[in-house]
């Protein structure tokens, strides 16, 4: 039965590599997640429901989702722009700029959080100018968004960059000979080609933002109902030894994330299938 589903390739080793994949995925991802569900199931349904529909938790869900979404969206726009500049133009210090993109991956997030808080606090370097205009950045959802944008930046850049690099100039040339101007070439030819990669980057940045803790806790101020993110609530529950409650919140968050990522993937898979890159 299974044999029929496997398309044979010239390279042997399907059994071994597939077995390894399953074991690896189980050990690293599936078993820990199963334990999470198991822990959540120690609560009765009413307890579970009460925990996850608690006013404070719901506010936190909403905050986490929308700040993550907007942060990923900001990264989508500016990450694409950065990738564009890095691929299409040659300038002094290009390699350095290229390396800087990866820094948010390498930096401990808590350090990023502290640094961002220092700069964007009402008395900070940048924050004081905004404070003068009456805009508060740190200790507001805006600050959370900045932190989430920071940690998600590399995803979009690194997703879009290789696709832009491989983009064949012949398509642009073909469009030009057919009379398209530069705007039309961008929106009708280049954009559709890099859009799937942009969505991949967006999905990754979004997923990363949903689970981010270290950089956000410093800049958010952690005010209940206002600037409390889900990972913080989970930590709070853990500190109160309320493991079941923490697991319940995590499970719901996990389901949200999974559904969103799954939808993005399905959509992407559909476009890829339609175009079937030659």
């Amino acid at each position, binding site marked *: 039965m299974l044999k029929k589903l496997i398309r044979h390739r010239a390279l042997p080793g399907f059994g071994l590599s597939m077995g390894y994949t399953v074991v690896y995925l189980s050990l690293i991802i599936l078993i820990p997640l199963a334990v999470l569900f198991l822990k959540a199931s120690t609560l009765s349904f009413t307890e579970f429901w009460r925990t996850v529909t608690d006013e404070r938790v719901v506010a936190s869900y909403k905050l986490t989702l929308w700040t993550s979404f907007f942060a990923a969206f900001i990264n989508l726009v500016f990450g694409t722009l950065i990738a564009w500049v890095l691929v299409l133009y040659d300038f002094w210090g290009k390699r350095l700029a290229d390396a800087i993109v990866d820094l948010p991956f390498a930096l401990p997030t808590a350090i990023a959080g502290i640094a961002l808080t220092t700069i964007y606090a009402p008395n900070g370097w940048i924050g004081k100018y905004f404070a003068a205009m009456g805009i508060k950045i740190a200790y507001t959802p805006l600050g959370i968004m900045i932190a989430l944008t920071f940690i998600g930046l590399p995803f979009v850049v690194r997703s879009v960059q290789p696709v832009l690099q491989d983009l064949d100039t012949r398509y642009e040339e073909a469009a*030009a000979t057919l009379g*398209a101007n530069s705007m*039309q070439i961008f929106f*009708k030819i280049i954009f*559709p080609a890099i859009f799937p990669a942009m969505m991949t980057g967006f999905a990754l940045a979004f997923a990363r933002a949903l689970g981010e803790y270290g950089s956000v806790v410093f800049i958010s101020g952690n005010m209940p109902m206002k600037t409390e993110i889900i990972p913080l609530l989970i930590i709070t529950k853990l500190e109160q030894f309320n493991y079941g409650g923490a697991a319940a919140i995590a499970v719901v968050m996990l389901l949200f994330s999974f559904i969103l990522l799954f939808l993005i993937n399905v959509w992407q898979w559909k476009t890829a299938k339609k175009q*079937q*890159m030659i």
Partner: protein
Amino acid sequence: MGISLKEVTKEFGTFRAVDNITLDIPTGDFTALLGPSGSGKTTLLRLIAGLEKIDAGTILLNGSDFSAKTVRERKVGFVFQHYALFKHMNIFDNIAFGLKVRPRKQRPSKKEITEKVMELLKLVQLEHTASRYPSQLSGGQRQRIALARALAIEPEVLLLDEPFGALDAKVRQELRHWLREIHQKLNITTLFVTHDQEEALEMADTIVVMNHGRVEQIGPPEEVYQNPANAFVYSFLGRVNELRGAALRGYLGNTIPNGDEVGYIRPHEIGLNRTLKGSSVPAEVSHVTKVGSTVRIDLKRLDLGHIFEAEMSTEKYRELGPVQKGDILYADLNHIVIFNGKNNTTQPVLENKTLRAAYL
């Protein structure tokens, strides 16, 4: 009229891809740019399309100066070797692209676009593919769609860059005929680049032979084939045997050989006999190949040890009788054409008049 190039030059760094080319292509002509890779033929085509900027010279299209115009303004139909169909658009949208991107005022209505696209799909005989995507089409079909797309903007000239280069032999053969038919129907000035001499000889009204960024010869296929202007053209068009030095002894007439001469003879111009006749050269058969209606025989000269190739029709071969490896035959090389090979651009020093008479 048509396309007219005057002293066109293009350099990439220190490399002169196109070197001072002057060329006139009359309206409605079907011209082949023929040359080995690196001869500048594709660059020349891209210069005409405006995809490369020219360094010097002028390009006139139907009498007006196009040298400074952008690609968009030139309105030339360009077909790429690898089709360059937009993968994310279906066939209909691909062909309609050139019409849809026009400024609002010049843009045809939706209905007109649909009609035009369907008309073009009919022309390329692929009406049923309108809603498919390029990935669902075969190479030959894709190239036909690429042509339809280029024709949609009603170009004054059609430029094709190795249009059949990526296709297999059979499809290529079909498309050659098909493209000629389309040209006959539409009569658009067409310029196509190829490195395949057979393709050029078969399709073109005029062949422009290029080498090292220069034009070596321009003329109708028969003329270029029968009267090659120089050694390069001779050796590039069709299969040849090259003869140098001692092998030329006896063929130079009164000219005193100085070692720079190079002689060419096409395999089918070599006569083979079982018996010695006049100045024939004895040679040993090393291999016999039958390719369709022709027979190719590889031979080794007994006197000099050089290897050469002869070709004949199956009928001639039957007259000669079955040839086997190791047989000794006498080769008649009188149809040899000798060039002074110091530089490859000199006139033949000795022409065989009887040969020309036989063909012209």
